[in-house]
Each structure stands twice: as C-alpha cells, then as structure tokens.
C-alpha cells in the first residue's frame, strides 16, 4: 500500500505533456487478473475478472470518471478440523469470493514515449462482495458492502489515430468488507488489467 502511494506521489510530481483533448470521453473494457493479498480465507490468483472504465477529460492531462469491475476467486481447502472452545467442524471445502468494486476516479496523464500515454489515478467508492463456502452438499453464503480505495497506474497504447487503444494497468484495492463468520476483516488485492479503450482521438 505504501509503495503504491509513493509511486503515485512521485509520478504526480513529474507533470507531463497533454494526452487527450479537453472534453473528450474515453471508454475502456479490460480483462482483470487479481491477486488476493490480505486474508487467510483464500490466496489463489483469479483469472476470472473484467473491468470497465469511463473517463471525461477536464483538461488535456486530467480526467474524472467511474470504474466498475468484477472478480471471481475460488480455492479448494483440504479436509481439516475447525475448532472453537468445544465446538468443532471437520470438512473440506471450496471457498469463493465474488467482488464487484465500483468507484469514482481521477487520473493524471504524463508525458511518455511518443506512442504511449501513461497515467496514474485514484478511485474512491464501494465494493459489493459475496463470500461462499461449499462443503459436501451444503453451502454457507455471506454478502456485504465495504468502502473502497483503489490507487492505480497504467498506460494507453493508441492504435492509430481513430480512437482505439490498448490499455494496460495495475491497481491495488483496499475495501472494508467484513465477515466475522469467515474471519474476514477487509479485502485487498493487486490486479492487472489488459484491454481496449475507445476515445475521441489521440
């Protein structure tokens, strides 16, 4: 988390050249690979994820917008005994998390190589999450909402001058989703996304 903030601050210091025309709209859709980082509930990387972004350029190098994404995590946990006082349960299980983070965003665009538009930004919003345990023929399901902070960096690689571009980015998400039953106090992850963007011209 600290490293991400330092990177963001450092990059914000180096004000670059303009990337987009003021007033332009940008849409992007990307495959989102996510690495859960903070909980004992599951640790397996999720390849099942997607994200959408909308950005409105207030100036040539500053945009505001919104992001919406989803990530499905799952991990098999071998049979073991869970104990508390004189209560115990023995089972194997499949643990899953389905996250839907959504945030309002602000991004800054830097001067990069001729063909690349690097950016850094921050999203603030909420995250819906559903955590489910499947064991034998049973399932236990808990869902919740949390406050979300999502700093990120990335870059656009324009495909010609007609508005399409490839986007590659990385983000860190910290959300306050809490689930006492599964001993989850928050949900955090790093994610990398790769996809396409459409804008009014680069």
């Amino acid at each position, binding site marked *: 988390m600290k490293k991400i903030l330092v990177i963001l601050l450092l990059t914000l210091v180096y004000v670059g050249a303009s990337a987009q025309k003021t007033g332009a709209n940008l849409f992007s859709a990307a495959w989102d690979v996510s690495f859960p980082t903070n909980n004992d509930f599951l640790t397996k990387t999720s390849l099942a994820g997607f994200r959408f972004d909308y950005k409105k350029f207030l100036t040539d190098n500053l945009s505001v917008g919104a992001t919406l994404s989803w990530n*499905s995590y*799952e991990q098999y946990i071998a049979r073991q005994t869970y104990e508390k006082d004189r209560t115990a*349960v023995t089972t194997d299980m499949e643990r899953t998390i389905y996250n839907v983070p959504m945030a309002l965003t602000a991004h800054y665009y830097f001067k990069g190589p001729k063909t690349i538009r690097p950016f850094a930004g921050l999203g603030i919003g909420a995250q819906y999450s559903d955590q489910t345990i499947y064991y034998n023929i049973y399932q236990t399901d808990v869902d919740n909402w949390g406050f979300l902070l999502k700093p990120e960096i990335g870059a656009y690689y324009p495909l010609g001058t007609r508005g399409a571009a490839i986007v590659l980015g990385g983000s860190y998400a910290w959300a306050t989703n809490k689930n006492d039953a599964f001993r989850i106090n928050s949900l955090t992850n790093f994610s990398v996304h790769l996809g396409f963007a459409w804008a009014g011209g680069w």
Partner: protein
Amino acid sequence: MKLQSLLLVLTCYLIVGGCRKSPDLDELSSKFVVATNADKEADFKTYKTYFISDTIRYLTNTSTDTVLVGPDADQLINTVKSNMSALGYTFVGRFDDPDVGLNMMVVKDLNIQTIVYPDWWWDWWYPWYWYDWYYPPYYPWSYTYAYTTGSIYISMGDLKNAPETKKLRMLWDALMGGALGTQSQNIAEGVDAINQAFQQSSYLKTN
C-alpha cells in the same frame, strides 16, 4: 472501423460470458461433514458408564421406516461403542443406571431440507426406549441444525443427574451429513464420520 467493431464484439463476449464464474466443485470429497458440540461446563470425567440402544431412529420419506436395525445399524452402533470404550466408558444395560445415554438417528431420503431446533424438536423423536428417563431435554448450547438427506445425529444426555435436576441435560452431540451414495458406501462414510466425531472431541474421557 472494422477493428473497432471487432473489439466491441470481443468485449461483449467477455462481459456476457465471464461474469461470476461458477465454482468448480469436482474437488469436493464425499466424506461427511462432521460437526460436534458440547456443554462447556460439563466434566466428562464424572461419568463412567453409558447406554446406547441397538435401534437407530430412521427418518425417510416412507412413513413405515422408523427404525434401522440389522448389520448396518450394528456397524454404526458398534463404532460408537468402540470409541466410548477406548475413552474409558463402560457399557451397561439401560436398567443398570448408566451415567449417560447415547441416542442415534439417521435421516435418509428427505427431499426438503429441514431446519431443526433441538429444544422443541426433541419431543417427536424422543426414543421410546428412553421412557424410563423421561425428563424435559435441555441443551446448554444454542444452534440449529439443517438436516438433509444423509445425516447421522448422535446425542449424549446426562442420565446421572436427571432425577435430581428433572431435566435431561445434553452433554455432547454430533451431526454428520452429506450426499448419499450406495448403502454400503453410506455406512462406510458413516463409520468414518463417527470416528471423526469422537476424534475431534478430545474432552470426552473418563480420566
């Protein structure tokens, strides 16, 4: 423009096709889930003898199937007996003043999951062979059970102190559940589950 259209189609495919992946449950084993609970205050060393009937209450969709007897029942009952014996408890007849009574029930073929509250549920399955010790049951812990097809339930009641307290205090219970396979497979899973129930209840011992 062609490129943009292609990208749009690809995006739509990824959106529609990918949202919320269904979990892969193939890895899950068929072994029963084993849950045990016990009175936190109970001192199991104060109990030395026990009784368990050779008859198992058997709940199915067929109203005539009310008890489970024969080799299958014997196998499950004997598993309980061997575990109790290994823990130092002595089996005695039901008229020989056992300190604790064990009761076993098997649920099979019930299509609808039933949420059961042990306190009020007790009456209708109170075992007929316990009539000598009929006292209102009392569970020192509070939780509900979800009985589905393929559940085995064992409870242990305090018979030693029941005449004085006028209550049948539950000391320990175990719920073992899962999907049903063939009869022999079910019994084998049941035996494993009973062994596991005792194994994870390390406080059950006479000394």
